[in-house]
């Protein structure tokens, strides 16, 4: 069970959370002007990376807030959690969390 840092509540167990899939896919401003293919891509196509993934989480059984997270899908480790609306953190700029063997 993951341990997830809610930006408002701090570290909480995964069972309090709901995962909402890939982050930073804004709903288009004017869907009716999109082609079917672009609409399909918005609805269904996902990056699904093996590695760092920006994803949405909601602290559903906690403060209720949605937020974004960067998590490595190979190690399942979170690199960052950040509030909705903030840009994806530039991990290169932030030093990797220290890890002692």
């Amino acid at each position: 069970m993951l341990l997830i840092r809610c930006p408002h509540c701090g570290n909480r167990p995964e069972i309090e959370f709901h995962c909402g899939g890939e982050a930073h896919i804004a709903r288009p401003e004017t869907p009716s002007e999109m082609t079917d293919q672009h609409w399909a891509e918005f609805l269904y196509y996902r990056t699904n990376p093996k590695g760092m993934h920006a994803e949405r989480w909601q602290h559903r059984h906690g403060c209720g807030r949605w937020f974004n997270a960067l998590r490595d899908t190979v190690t399942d480790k979170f690199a960052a959690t950040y509030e909705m609306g903030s840009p994806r953190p530039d991990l290169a700029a932030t030093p990797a969390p220290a890890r002692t063997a």
Partner: protein
Amino acid sequence: MRRFSLASLLKESTKGHTGWERQWRAPEPKKEYDVVIVGGGGHGLATAYYLATVHGVTNVAIIEKGWIGGGNTGRNTTIIRSNYLFDESAALYNHAMNLWEGLSQELNYNIMFSQRGVLMLAHNHHDVVTFKRHVYSNKLNGVDNEWLSPEECKAFCPPLTISKDIRYPVMGGALQRKGGTARHDAVAWGYARGADARGVDIIQNCEVTGLQRNPDGSVKAVETTRGTIGARKVGVVAAGHTGVVMGRFGLRMPVESVPLQALVSEPVKPCFPCVVMSNAVHAYISQSDKGELVIGAGTDQYNSYSQQGGIHVTNHTLDAICELFPQFTRMRMLRSWGGIVDVTPDRSPILSKTPIKNLFVNCGWGTGGFKATPGSGHVFAHMLATGEPHEINAPYSLDRFRTGRLIDEAAAAAVSH
């Protein structure tokens, strides 16, 4: 290929079994193949087998990054059934069912296809209606499926509780007698041996890392950890890694990879005669030939390539198992594991052309593709050989996500596996 039979087995037993040959070779990759299949799971191996046997295409390589059958083929709960609702699905899965029935003999490899019956339990009005809808649809499509009363369910599966006092009493069930289980590893090995015998190269420990294209954009070669391998056509059959492989080829897919867990109990004497699935309480259970109860758990909620998930998923599954079979609380979990399943938006697979010429993809089987292995390989081989979909897999194109012609069994029934 040395034939397997009781006679050959007895003969070998007098010689300490020293006369058996390799079941498949370990060849060096050739320079170029007519078809390169990325992924040595059941689907990829079956594809190669049918390419060779049905279409006479034998200059084929299967490229597997690990060991064949080590993906979801080797870690699934082996439930086989074909009682799907929609015509498109019934056609696909029943095609597989027909092939399963003669597969041990065809492959000359006992894959232990055990038609012990798959019983899907209904626990509420909605389930009842949904399953009856399936039963009727299946009958008209020539797919075996029948409705059982709770008492009939109990008679078919004596360990089952049909007490009215449990949280979700059993209100009946849909039984597919032809359904059952098979020995998952043997399916991979049997196809591998069959394909190898017909000239297909099975190349293990070789990861596909990229694609080279001709000036016209069509497929030219795959790049691998063991060098570049020429390919006139490429079929990607990489299940949970489809997104990764296609990503390396420059394409995004309507697929997400999530962990799906399963577990086995310690082995016990036969105590569970069939397969039981309960969607409402979320439980799948059967007993293997070795005696373990094989239990399917749920998916974790997040994308992951880690082949493991949280213990809460296991706990939840066992809650449901023990609700239906309270006598099993004293059984013990022996081993639990996870696979990476490739889930599409409509939970139906993709067997499709792609925007790249001569590149084809077979994926999206998610939590339920083992049962389709022979059928999937059979129609995908057709597609690779002819360049055009078989009529059975035509509806499973990528284009359906654009048009909205989804094949959403899950939405129609909330049934998985």
